[in-house]
């Protein structure tokens, strides 16, 4: 059995980079890993997902109802994918959400935070102030790493391998910034 993680968000928010960090950490620890991600058309500001199966030797796809953990960079996307979570799994999500353009151009009803939380329902969700913490780390572009840090104590991977994987994966000039973001995220959620 593998430990299955779904990373969701909007194209351009860093889902692929975050999944690369998890994959790299697995290679550091010598654990088999499989991942699947969204490329091409779906990336242009659309809803995207990355699937990472830690300790898996077969295929990369996670079935609905079986994911151990969801990391979401947008509150609305957390709701869109929450049914992938298994009973007892956790969702770590950003507090903020981008309203899809379809709401305005096609007159969809705009959901508010209350309604989104209602859709997530009974799933165990931990809402992280990712933007504020990323700003504190030094760049709002590190929100994905804040969330990875927040979820890190729930992953079957050593903290040190994750930090090493961050260093190996992000652009060289931003290593310190990203490690700070990781630590801030991890500190906030160490209590969960």
């Amino acid at each position, binding site marked *: 059995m593998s430990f299955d993680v779904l990373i969701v968000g*909007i*194209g351009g928010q860093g889902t692929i980079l975050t*999944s*690369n960090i998890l*994959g*790299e950490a*697995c*290679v550091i620890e*010598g*654990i*088999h*890993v*499989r*991942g*699947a*991600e*969204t*490329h*091409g*058309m*779906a*990336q*242009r*500001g*659309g*809803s995207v997902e990355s699937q990472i199966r830690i300790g898996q030797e*077969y*295929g*990369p*796809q996670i*079935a*609905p*109802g*079986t994911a151990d953990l969801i990391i979401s960079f947008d509150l*609305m*996307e957390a*709701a*869109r994918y*929450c*049914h992938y979570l298994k009973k007892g799994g956790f969702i770590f999500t950003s507090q903020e959400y*981008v*309203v*899809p*353009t*379809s*709401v*305005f*151009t096609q007159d*969809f*009803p*705009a*959901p508010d935070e209350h*309604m*989104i939380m209602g*859709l*997530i*329902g009974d799933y165990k969700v931990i809402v992280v102030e990712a933007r504020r913490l990323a700003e504190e780390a030094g760049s709002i572009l590190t929100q994905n790493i804040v969330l990875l840090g927040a979820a890190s104590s729930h992953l079957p991977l050593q903290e040190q391998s994750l930090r090493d994987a961050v260093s190996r994966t992000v652009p060289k000039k931003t290593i310190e910034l990203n490690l700070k973001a990781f630590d801030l995220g991890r500190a906030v959620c160490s209590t969960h």
Partner: protein
Amino acid sequence: MVVKYLLGNEAIAHGCLEAALDTAFGYPGTPSSEVIDTLRTWPDRQSYVEWSVNEKVAYEEALASSWCGMRSIVTMKHVGLNVAADPLMTSAYTGVKGGFVVMSADDPFAHSSQNEQDSRCYAAFARIPCLDPSSVQEAHDMVRDAFSLSEEFLLPVLFRPTTRICHSKSDVTLGEVAALDRQASFEKDPRQYVVIPAHTRVLHKQLNEKQASLKKRLVESGYNRSTIRGKIGVITGGIAASYVHEVVSDSVSIAHIGAYPIDEEWLSGFIRSHERILVVEELAPVIEEVSRQVAGLVPILGKKTGHVPYEGELSPSRVAQYLKAADIPVKLDYPVIQPPAGLPVRPPILCAGCMHRTAMYAIRKVFRDGIFPSDIGCYTLGLQLGVVDTTICMGASITVASGMAQAGEKHDIVCTIGDSTFLHTGIQGLLNAVYNDANITVVILDNRITAMTGHQPNPTTGVTASGVERPAVSLEMLCRSCGVSFVETVSPSDLVQFTGVLKDAKARKGVKVIIAKQPCVITERRAKINRGKYRVSSDICIGCKACIKFGCPAIELHSGIALITDLCSGCGVCTQICPVSAISLEVKE
């Protein structure tokens, strides 16, 4: 040996380098593009790497390279193989010299494609071997071995990964990158390379004679293998094999097909050791049809019996469902869960500040009752703006437009096509439309890059795949040399001027070409071009929604008043749309 966490396409590129690849040609297409992108950015690269203008061009160059004794790959997606089908068929007759691999990446579920065709059918049609990996590691190993297989049988080898191989990742064990030592040298042999009928008849016979030993060789290679464990068997291949291995009970036999053509005798031996067989494969029933031919009295379940669907992609949970329906035991069971309802959709959309949106907005304003054939690229997303009425394949916007015009359609016909797509197969449609005097307006959306597939350079970019600067092709001169007299180049960001040119075109007969030229907004961001951000003065905004209807993802409506978000890239087009001048450049205090 080193273990890395790699994308399928990166692992495939590395396999090529381990096989001492000399030349690589391709046309970008999701999910195939990262193979050439990895090769072209490889540090200390020795091989020649090229983004060609279309798949037929790329195929013929790669074939010629192989005829000179070089190991060569040509990459494309499944629909690109249609463009290259002409040389594919005949190259099976002429054969090859240096190892020649044709990578055609299939896209079950059409994640980013116009259809779900199966490249394995092309391999069978051309009678060439096809290798079909079931994992990233196998894709790496297979493509490396494909070059020697090609040299052993002197045939092109079709290599067919699918989206869940190309765009999936795994820990991959890699070998050493090999040094190159071959020299290109073409040895003349007209009986081999000139397919006049007298030669062709001989070559066709030789191609057919290779088939029997090829089938045996693919079983010996271990790519077609089986394990007998009980009275019920599953035959599978490609990524579906990994799902079957994950979910099926240990009491069920498995035959794993990794290479085609399948040796019928071997397959028959497996099938006839069982009471019942289910075939699990994505897309076309290629394995199933061979199985049925050799099954004797053993029942074969699969697509033809309704146990597995013809369309879409498989997954572990779907495979478990199909196994159970065929009364085959599984070791994993999956809950049936409904996704939450009521969330607004978030489909892919043109970027904030993308000038394609502005061009399409203006087209819709000027040609209210127009018909809008379009093509394949980012701008296909203009569907949401109501300016994409048809999309078939690369190059089919100008031809569809002229076909409608020649049929006598009375409405204005305005087609859109991107720069890369125009160079791919758009030119032929343009010169045909001019020569036959169609009455259409062609808008070439020229952002100087192949943006949708990951910003690959094309001849309008002014830089090659290897990063060498070259004079960019002049679309104006190309269009004029096709015989177009109305050719206007204008940036859509100046809405007034752009709209004026559209009105000029509307007033004239014949083929009119407007080159809507503007850099891609992502290219600009990477070049650190910062045009600031715009803001709405809430006391001036009257909530008329004119800017909202523009469809820019950076503009939202809150309590009836427009608001510009952080996504704003500073194109400023919304200032030209707002009727009360409520939008202005943000001034930092």
